[in-house]
């Protein structure tokens, strides 16, 4: 898929009609075929905008920082990105009138090995769920499948699995890149930064990392849209999606097949309940 032309046209239109202050898209890297987010205020930059199956990063992340938060922003979103954006709208982080959303019907993006990314293979919603303008033809909602890695890990013996995760937490250097690259981590001050050590593990020990990552994943439970920004950002290449997919899986199976950010005004599974929620695990 290549929508570079269309996006350039729309962008220039938006600037011409003075509908936006910022436009967020993708730009080709100078040294390889990968792309980077591209934040422009100057229409002259528009020709650099591209969109192909290498446009990986979730741009909803660019509605977080102060310099764009309250501005009028036009941006390009894929299926998963639009779900994140949906949540940002519901949670009052973005005003709908402030964003002009170009939704792309995604056909899956390629990872650095040039093969279809795992989350795209398992994608449930490739089409944008919220948009002002849609590019491509929607292919509709897909069937939910349990993540392959989760299946694998479920087979492991308890202590083996524990060893595996211990190694993940050991390799974490707690740079918090995962958090900063997550479009849904917008807190004014993250609870994991609060330096009151009785509350939190400040140290970069594996137990500290475990504490941080677990708390983080629980804060994203029922909200994570599986865009894998965190994983792309992680300098230690940790498989962070495991924790999120596990939660997503439990939530999907137990709470009316809930998936994050699908409907407008849906805050996620932890902010509503049903009388028929499973009770069997409770004594």
């Amino acid at each position, binding site marked *: 898929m290549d929508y570079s032309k269309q996006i350039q046209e729309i962008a220039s239109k938006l600037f011409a009609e003075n509908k936006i202050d910022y436009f967020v898209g993708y730009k080709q890297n100078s040294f390889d075929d990968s792309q980077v987010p591209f934040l422009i205020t100057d229409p002259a930059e528009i020709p650099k905008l591209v969109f192909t199956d290498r446009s990986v990063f979730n741009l909803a992340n660019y509605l977080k920082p102060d310099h764009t938060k309250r501005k009028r922003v036009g941006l390009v979103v894929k299926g998963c990105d639009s779900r994140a954006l949906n949540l940002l709208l519901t949670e009052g982080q973005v005003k709908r009138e402030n964003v002009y959303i170009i939704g792309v019907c995604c056909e899956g993006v390629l990872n650095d090995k040039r093969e279809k990314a795992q989350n795209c293979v398992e994608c449930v919603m490739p089409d944008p769920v919220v948009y002002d303008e849609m590019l491509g033809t929607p292919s509709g909602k897909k069937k939910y499948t349990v993540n392959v890695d989760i299946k694998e890990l479920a087979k492991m013996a308890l202590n083996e699995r524990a060893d595996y995760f211990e190694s993940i937490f050991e390799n974490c250097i707690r740079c918090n890149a995962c958090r900063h690259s997550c479009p849904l981590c917008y807190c*004014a*001050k993250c609870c994991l930064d609060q330096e009151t050590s009785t*509350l939190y593990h400040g140290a970069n020990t594996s137990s500290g990392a475990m504490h941080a990552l677990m708390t983080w994943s629980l804060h994203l439970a029922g909200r994570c849209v599986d865009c894998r920004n965190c994983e792309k950002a992680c300098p230690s290449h940790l498989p962070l999606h495991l924790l999120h997919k596990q939660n997503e899986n439990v939530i999907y199976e137990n709470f009316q097949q809930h998936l994050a950010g699908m409907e407008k005004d849906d805050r996620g599974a932890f902010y509503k309940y049903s009388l028929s929620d499973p009770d069997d695990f409770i004594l």
Partner: protein
Amino acid sequence: MARVGVFVCYCGANIAGVVDVPAVVQEAKKIKEVKIAIEYKYMCSDPGQQMIRDAIVQNRLTSVVVAACSPRMHEKTFRKALSDAGMNPYMLEVANIREHSSWVHQKDKKAATDKAIDLIRMAIGKSIANEQLHEISVPVTKRALVIGGGIAGIQAALDIADARIPVTLVEKSPSIGGRMAQLDETFPTLDCSQCILTPKMVDVASHPYIELIPYSEVIELDGYVGNYKAKIKKKASYVDFSTCTGCGTCTQKCPVKVPNEFNMNLDKRKAIYTPFPQAVPNKPVIDAEHCTMLLKGKCGICAKFCEKGSINFKMVDEVIEREIGAVVIATGYDLWDPKPYEEYGVGRYKDIITSLEFERMVSASGPTNGVPIRPSDGKVPRNVVFIKCIGSRDEAKGIEYCSKICCMYTAKHAILLHHKVHDSHAYIFYMDIRAAGKGYEEFVKRAQVETAATYLRGRVSKIYKKGDKLMVRGEDAQIGQVVEVEADLVVLATAITAPKDNPALARLLGVSYDKYGYLSEAHPKLRPVETAKAGIFLAGCTQAPKDIPDTVAQASACAAKVCGLFSGDTMKKDPMISTINNEFCSGCQNCVKVCPYQAIVTEEIPLGPGSKEMRIVAKINEGVCQGCGSCVAVCRSMAISLAGFTDPQIINEIVAI
């Protein structure tokens, strides 16, 4: 630097019998923050409390840990002791070493002692993180708003007003009285409904503490318990009540005839009308939908004949505001429309009527002056078939619940029919007879015996016309065969439902309602008249189907609640509620979503000091917050903390073990 005092109680042998108290005290002394640790036989006794008070003063303690019985037992006692010693009462922590240790580990003294030590350590840890709290006092506006002028509203209004508390009674129709005013006689005593109701209606009108606002609706309510502000829309009546004498000339002269809803459209009223003769206030209003003057701009006869010149066609809706402290909702009920029962020919056969229509007919002041007639030909019916549970207990066509009153009023109708038409005969098709209530069962017996009404257990399958009669085919389960009754008139005991605008009202008032539209009580058993929203109460059928005695009882209960609420100038409130730290709040409003009391709202604050850009943050309404902590657990940025159970306190407990 925290200075903690630890006071361990023997509770006679209750604790000391199992837990090695001196050892516990020694352990407590080892802890850094502990400045004094003492033991005593009965800490809750006066000398015990005196020890605490002295220790606080002598050791300049900043917090106190009492190791004794459950905090649910003596927390208040010891808090008092603290405040007597000039210390903030909320710097107290109670370690429950009786219910949680000595009493449940009697066989294992060592383990019990170790556990007691841990429990005390936890309490100390927590107490160090305690904050000084102060009882919240919320001012109250001593005026109640009653919504709905039926018997429930009337009763509540009168009871409250009699306690010299001003009441604003809002009724959407031109007159108070509600459904009860439409009834002829009431079960089980058969005393005349009007006779017992109208005096109360007059009392309402004349009561110095009641402000009656008829023909109006509540359109907005904000604020919280004790401090609500209500907007009330007075619908244009086109008649100036202040000058109108209610002489009634206008209604006689008005040429426009309109179906009369008070009489279930069995007769006609005028376009300018008073709903019924005993209406309160007894002033006419103009029905804008039918008045030719208002529609076409010609006519105006009423104005010509009105000597006082009270008619004013230019009148418009006006909105008034009232500051109130509590609300009683008494919006009553609607009747279920039996249309779905086509097999009975509802709508096709004129002579199938609903019970309330029948009620109006047999009412002496009704359209037929108390004689039941067949709508088709005006003849007086001889054989009348009553069918119960029309809509009630019928998941397929109607609603699941039992309307509760139909059994009784049908029995009443059988008796009334007998009174009015002596040679008549009543057939009653029923599923069950539910006559729970004082004198109810006897009343049903009376219908069966005295008036020889034929009770047929079974559903009616079909009604069809034969000549001018209606053939009612149904099953008599007792003899197990199909019966057919030749009826002159069929009366359907239609279910009662929640008023159709209840959900809208509920949303406007911020109370919850069930799937039928009935407003929900705070607790099905223990708080049946309160709603989940503090200061808003429920009376009558707006909560669930009820008969008159239950309705009146609940109305009076509401009044008692309101009076209790208003007993002081301010309401004292436990300070253990949530507070928001704006610096951390990211304005995601999840707390707003999960708060069961709508105690959290949002406010806009400047982005930074002096900046023009605004951001949204949550705001706790301390008048409403009950301190459950749901919001704290869902606050990802930890902007909310629950006084008395803050994160540091709980974590201190966890790490102290």
